[in-house]
């Protein structure tokens, strides 16, 4: 399989606090990598570094062999290829759902409006929200907004999707509807890097699991090994904190 994303020995620090050091990760086309770890371990920051929302102090990030550099003029063009969905579903409040979906394709990619609209409607239909196309974001539930946010990212035809704790702010009964969408994306072979606290979901969706703690990758492996046969004591402790047996 072709490598899409290569993260090589990146380090991130804020003044005198080191978030992580020497982190590396390679993602192949069609692969779903799930990153888990305790709060504050740097996993979200790691994800944000991938599309240069955070700058890095050391190392390099390559997408299709092209360096992602926060100071580069080419950054917007590279970011088009990286879809990102955030924890707090930041739809644009002044636009309707349909307008939210069409804004970036029409303005950035210069997709003809009719074409963008057609695609937006078919994707909305797929996530069961066609009837909400003319509503404003505030009229939707959290789960609905998050599904729209996923569709908004898909509208740019990204090569890779980054999902940053996309269910962390949702009511439990809404988590499912969002994760079902992600599962169906995984089935159709989308490349994704997912940060989540939903262990059941991680197990179902991941081709590869990565456990980050204290700014380092402590353990990685296939979902089955990772959950059934963790190698490190630290991961065992971490997984145990999710079980009530």
């Amino acid at each position: 399989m072709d490598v899409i994303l290569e993260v090589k020995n990146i380090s991130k620090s804020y003044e005198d606090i080191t978030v992580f050091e020497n982190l590396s990760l390679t993602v192949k086309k069609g692969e779903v990598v799930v990153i888990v770890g305790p709060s504050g371990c740097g996993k979200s920051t790691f994800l944000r570094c991938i599309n240069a929302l955070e700058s890095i102090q050391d190392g390099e990030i390559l997408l299709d062999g092209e360096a992602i550099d926060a100071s580069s003029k080419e950054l917007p063009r590279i970011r088009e290829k990286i879809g990102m969905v955030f924890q707090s579903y930041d739809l644009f409040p002044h636009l309707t759902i349909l307008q939210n979906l069409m804004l970036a394709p029409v303005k950035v990619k210069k997709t003809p409006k009719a074409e963008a609209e057609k695609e937006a409607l078919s994707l909305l239909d797929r996530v069961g929200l066609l009837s909400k196309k003319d509503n404003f974001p505030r009229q939707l539930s959290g789960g609905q907004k998050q599904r729209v946010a996923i569709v908004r990212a898909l509208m740019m035809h990204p090569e890779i999707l980054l999902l940053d704790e996309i269910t962390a702010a949702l009511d439990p009964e809404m988590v499912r509807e969002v994760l079902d969408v992600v599962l169906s994306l995984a089935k159709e072979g989308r490349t994704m890097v997912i940060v989540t606290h939903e262990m059941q979901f991680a197990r179902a969706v991941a081709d590869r699991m990565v456990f980050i703690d204290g700014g380092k990758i402590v353990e990685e492996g296939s979902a089955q090994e990772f959950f059934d046969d963790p190698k490190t004591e630290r991961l065992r402790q971490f997984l145990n904190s999710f079980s009530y047996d």
Partner: protein
Amino acid sequence: MDPEVLRSYVPLYKEAFILTLETGWLGIAIAFAIGIVTAFIMHFRIPVLAKIASVYVELFRNTPLLVQLFFIYFALPKIGISIPARECGAIGLGLLGGSYMAEGIRSGLDAVGTLQEESALALGMSKRQMFMYVIFPEALSISVPGIVANVIFLLKETSVFSAISLMDLMFTAKDLIGLYYDTTEALVLLVVFYIIMLLPVSLLGSIVEKKARYRTLGV
């Protein structure tokens, strides 16, 4: 009150009304343009310009329009810049209003969260696109109540134009009182014309406010 006197005054007031409205709106347009640029500079803390912007805002917010007009109309000609009274009025109003608008729009810009910026950037938008399509429209709808209040305030401030002998509503009233002593008639018409000028702005303003609020906040 003599209806005959009222009737004979109305054409004079009409003329003054048009002049006041034209100069007022020109001043407000200038204020809006200055306000947007200044707010932008302050929000993004553009080096050097941000310092100049805040000096400008403090200077013009903290001095009366009358003093500013005197400067533009009477002091500038001494250094060779003379501007006709009407333009002086519009420029003065624009500079005063710009400082108020700047603060109003800046607070709107500051209220749009960084997550909105990040969402726009993550979709591949350039900074300019992010500002034009996401940040600015959102900020504007948050700033609407402040902007409407400023517009009403500025239209009322036109009453000091009379000090630089612009034939505005206030000037006309004072003039007529001085000439004919029909104080009641002159003042009643003055009030009526100010209300004709401001009431539609006020009503329209609250409709726009409601709409903008509903769009962004849903209440």
